[in-house]
Structure formats: C-alpha cells, structure tokens
C-alpha cells in the first residue's frame, strides 16, 4: 500500500515535471503558423509567387521571425478555383491550425476564404483580391486587406478625368463583378465631377473579341474611353485599340491592371497610356528603393505591385503581433494592433480603414517603355466608402 502510494506520488511528480518542462519547451519553440493560400498554378501563378516572395522577404528582413517567433509556413495552391476554396481554407484552419490565413488573388476564392475566417474566428489578410464586398457588406473583425478595393483606383481615375475637363466617356469591361465594380467606382466620381457616361458596354468573361466595341466607340466619338481589363485580355484590348487607330483620337484610360505585367505583350501599343493604381515605378521613397534592390537580389526578378502587397501583409501581421506581445492567441490585441498600425509600405505609408482596407494614395502613372512611371498623386489618402459594412 505504502509502496504503491509512493509510486503514485512519484509518478505524479514525474508527470507534472514532464508536463511543466513540456509547456516550457512548447512556449520557447512555439512558432507562428502562417497559412499561405495562393495560386501557384494556372493563370495567376506569377501573382501567387510574387505575393509569397514579398511576404517572405519581410520575414527575412525581420530576422526570420514574426512577433519574435520563428515562422512556420503552410502552403496550399488554391488554383484560383472557388469550388475548392472552402475545403482548402478549412484544411489550413482546422488541420494545420494556422494563426493567420494569407490569401488570395481571385476574388471568388477570397470571398469563400473570408467566410471560413469569420466562422472560425481566424485572422485573415487578403494580399490582392479586390472585391469591394470583402471590406464592404462582408467585412469582419478578422478580415484585413493589404491591397486595394476595386473601387479605389477607378474612383481616383473618375475624379482625375472630371478635373481635366473630360465631358463624355464610353466604358468597356468584362461582365463580372470586378469589372462592374471598377466601372461603378469610375462612374460615381466622374459624374459627381460633372461628366457623363455616354455608353457602357460589357462582354462576357473571358471573351476577347473587341472589334464590335471599337466600331461602336468610333461612331459615338466620346472624349475618352475607360476600360477595365487585366492580363491577356488587357494586352489584346490595348493592341486592338491602337490598331483601330483610336488611340490617337480618343484617349484610353483604366485602372493600373490594364498595363501591369503585360507591357511586353502589347509591343509598344501601350506607350503613353495613363492608368491609376496604388503603386508605380519611379516612386521616390527610400523604402521602395530598398525593397526593390533587395527583391531583385533575392529573387532575380523585378518586384511588382503584388510583391508589395505580400510584403505589406507580413508587415501588418507583425504590427499586430507586436501589440499582442508576440502571442498570436491574443486575437483581440492582434486585431487592435493591426487596426491602429501605420504601415511603412514601399507604395508609401498607409493606415487601415474601419473596415480594414488600406487608406492609401492613388498614383497617376504613364507607360514609358516597360515601366508604369509615376506622374503624380491624384488622390491623397483615398478611403474606400465600405458601403454595407456594419463594423
């Protein structure tokens, strides 16, 4: 009996000691788990890679740590496939138990991820997807964005054209949410400034037969044309527009996605185009210079706006962790820290709006050779109106 009691006590003590040691060890070795859910294959593969590179660059500059802890990455290729989005996000949250979800490029996938983040109360940072809804009607304390809303660059362009004295504009875009949100943002500012949209044209995504619209534009003869296209569609539209001889008589404008990353494919047809975006070549801040040099050295690639957004996603999370004393479990503190942070971004410093979208400067850029060179800040500290957000 006695012997057994001793044994029991001994065992208990040993177990406690082991447990204590275990906790201590776990604390010291606890890593911050970052779930990168981004496209690594398909059309947006290059964007996913740039975002990942940017994120990791900040972590490296920060001594390989976030909030003073080592970083462990969990990576999922989202394939830009909304049908698999919920499952992939849940896997990262419940199997890998990530502290933060970073993703993604495609708005449809990001919306599904945001739902998982809201439901499981997991922190999420969107490093690209521009759907207004993410920081609008579907906003959540747990969802942040390091990029932009579709509304922002287009609204700035509408303001700028109205100020220039442009009276009538025709618009063309794909009939899907990002295109329609872009045109709506443009229209809001342009009509407020006294302009008028004379023709609003759409075509099904990803149709690229633009010739009928060019003919319509030529017969309507507006003062200017505003379009949203991206990637290959943008390259084709700009080339077709120039080939139809319209470029010289009716100026073409659009948000920066029109000319980012595809100037080579346009073969000179894009030269001189004016676009608006929250990033540009030829910015004059020291942060950008350092960021670009380091990025080019590390990855043997020129950085782009996507790399900046990835870099800033990491910066935002670092700010949150710092406020929580490095503990990702203290979610409320992390969120408060991120909300009040001033992010020293290569694009220029920004803060976050109540709905967690960057309040940032929008640049007017002009295509010169293979660059989108900054001309001026057309909208200082532009804040997305976050319509429908009850936060």
């Amino acid at each position: 009996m006695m012997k057994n009691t001793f044994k029991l006590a001994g065992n208990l003590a040993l177990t406690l000691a082991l447990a204590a040691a275990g906790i201590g060890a776990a604390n010291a070795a606890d890593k911050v788990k970052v779930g990168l859910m981004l496209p690594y294959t398909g059309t947006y593969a290059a964007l996913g890679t740039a975002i990942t590179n940017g994120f990791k660059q900040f972590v490296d500059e920060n001594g390989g740590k976030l909030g003073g802890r080592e970083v462990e990455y969990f990576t999922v290729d989202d394939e830009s496939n909304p049908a698999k989005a919920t499952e992939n996000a849940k896997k990262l949250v419940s199997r890998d138990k990530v502290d933060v979800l970073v993703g993604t490029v495609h708005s449809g996938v990001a919306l599904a991820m945001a739902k998982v983040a809201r439901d499981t109360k997991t922190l999420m940072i969107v490093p690209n997807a521009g759907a207004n809804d993410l920081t609008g009607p579907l906003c959540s304390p747990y969802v942040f964005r390091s990029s932009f809303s579709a509304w922002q660059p287009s609204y700035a362009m509408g303001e700028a054209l109205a100020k220039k004295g442009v009276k009538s504009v025709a618009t063309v875009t794909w009939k899907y949410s990002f295109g329609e949100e872009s045109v709506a943002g443009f229209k809001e500012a342009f009509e407020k400034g006294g302009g008028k949209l004379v023709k609003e044209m759409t075509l099904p995504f990803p149709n690229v037969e633009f010739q009928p619209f060019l003919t319509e534009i030529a017969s309507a003869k507006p003062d200017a044309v505003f379009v949203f296209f991206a990637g290959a569609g943008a390259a084709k539209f700009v080339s077709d527009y120039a080939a139809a001889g319209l470029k010289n008589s009716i100026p073409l404008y659009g948000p920066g996605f029109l000319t980012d990353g595809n100037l080579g494919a346009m073969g000179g047809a894009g030269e001189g185009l004016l676009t608006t975006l929250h990033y540009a070549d030829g910015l004059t801040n020291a942060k950008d210079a350092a960021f670009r040099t380091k990025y080019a050295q590390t990855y043997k690639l020129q950085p782009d706006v996507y790399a900046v957004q990835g870099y800033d996603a990491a910066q935002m999370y670092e700010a949150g962790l710092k406020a929580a004393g490095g503990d990702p479990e203290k979610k409320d503190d992390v969120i408060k820290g991120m909300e009040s942070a001033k992010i020293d971004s290569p694009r220029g410093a920004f803060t976050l709006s109540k709905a967690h979208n960057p309040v940032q400067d929008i640049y007017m850029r002009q295509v010169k050779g293979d660059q989108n060179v900054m001309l001026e800040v057309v909208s200082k500290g532009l804040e997305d109106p976050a319509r429908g957000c009850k936060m």
Partner: protein
Amino acid sequence: MDFASFLIQTLNSLQYGLLLFLVASGLTLVFGIMGIINLAHGSFYMIGAYLAFVLTSATGSLVLAIVLGIPLALAFGAFLEWALFSHLYKRDHLEQVLLTYGLILIFEQLRSLLVGDDVHGVAIPAFLDASIQLTEVMSYPVYRLAISVICIVLAVALYYVIQRTRLGMMIRAGNDDRGMVEALGININMIYRVVFALGVALAALAGMLAAPISSVFPNMGSHVLIISFVIVVIGGIGSVWGALVAALIVGFADTFGKVLVPELSGIVVYVVMAVVLLWRPEGILKKG
C-alpha cells in the same frame, strides 16, 4: 446604328467568322471523318500560337515562323496519331474524351514548364503592319484583312482536296465504310494519319495567324474549343462547307449580339445553335 457602322460591323463579323472557321475546320475533319471527339483541339491552337511566339523570337519573322511551324505541326499530329489516337478508333467516346482531356492538362503543363505563364505578344510582319482609314476616327488593320483572305483560300483548298482529289475520295470512303476501303487494298491507317495531322496543322495555323492579334497566353486553347464545337455542330459534323457557313453565322451572331442586345451577348450564339438544331437536328449541311 448608322450605315457606316453597320458596314464596319459586317466586316467585323466576316473577319471573326473566317478566323473561327480556320480553327473549327480541323475539328470537323477529325470529328466527322475519324469519329474522334478531340477535346485537345484547342491545345493545338495554343501550341500553334506559342510556336509562332517562340519561332518569331528566334527567326525575327512571323512568315518564317509559320513556314517552319506548319511542318512541325504536321509531324506532331502524325506522331500523336501513331502513338495514341490510332488505338482509339474502336473504343467508345468516353475513352476518347478521357485521353484528350488528359492531353489538355499535359500540354498546358508542358507549356508552363517550357515557356512560362506570362502573356506574350507577337509582332505583325512589317509589310502587313498598316491600316486602312474607314471613318475619320476608325481604321482597319491590314493584317486582319490578310487573315480573312488566307482563311478563304484555305476553305477553297480544303473543299477542293476533299471533294475533287483521289485522296479526298479515299478519306470520304474511309468515313463511310472503313472495312470496305481496307478490303479494296487502301491503307486506311495511313489516310487517318494524314487527316489527323492535317487537323492538328489547321488548328496550329489558326493559332499562329491569330497570335499577333489575340496575344499569346496560358489556357488560350480552352477559349476557342467550345466555340469550335458549336460551329461543328451547327454546320453538320464532318462537313467543311458546313463549318464555313456555321462559322460565319456565329461571327455575325456574336458581333451583332454584342452591339444590339448587349445584356444577352453571352447567350446569343447558343440561342442560334438551339434554333438551328431544332430546324435541322443534324446541322445545316449534313455530312456526305
């Protein structure tokens, strides 16, 4: 719409329709004559466009790229027929769909490994890089007109080969009764190889010609695949002439649909297809 706009939109329709014909003609040959449902047809279009990009970068001339690219596409088509498709003739459509869908994935992955995922442009040959002024602000690129001319020439040539030559006669006979043709001592396997290689070359040629105006980008083949099947079905499976008529109908429906009923522009082509099939369930020009 004023009269000048109407004329230009008509030109747009013709030009778009003719380019669609070039892609669909290869599909209708392979589908109609060999009975193969070839989902990878769009990939051959994509391969053609990338060939144009790579060869134009290497040689500096699109014309030279096309001259080099066509034999490559023919050889590639003959190889695929020998290695894969020749085993499929007696199998059912499901297995053909599986194989050709697999090929799409393989070709896209190879493209990604070899050339990357960027969007590329191909320069228009200097002697065609001009435009004709149509209205005071609108002009028409000569290159687009040149493509239309090439498409018309090819349509006539295809019609001639299939209807008027001995090879064409054997192709048509092989389609009607494979066993009888073999019994007559004609090497039907060789005929099929020729037809398949021709189909691949036509799709690749379409990709090469379209490269300067459509730009070259990942998954570009899937965009043309569906519309090609629509054309083949409207035109009547296996009929080259039918494909031409159907491609022009689709060109007009798409162009004027975008202008006149923009809200419905996504479905106009499919409505036209449904109407045609109600009227003639086997397509406008039945095979044979």
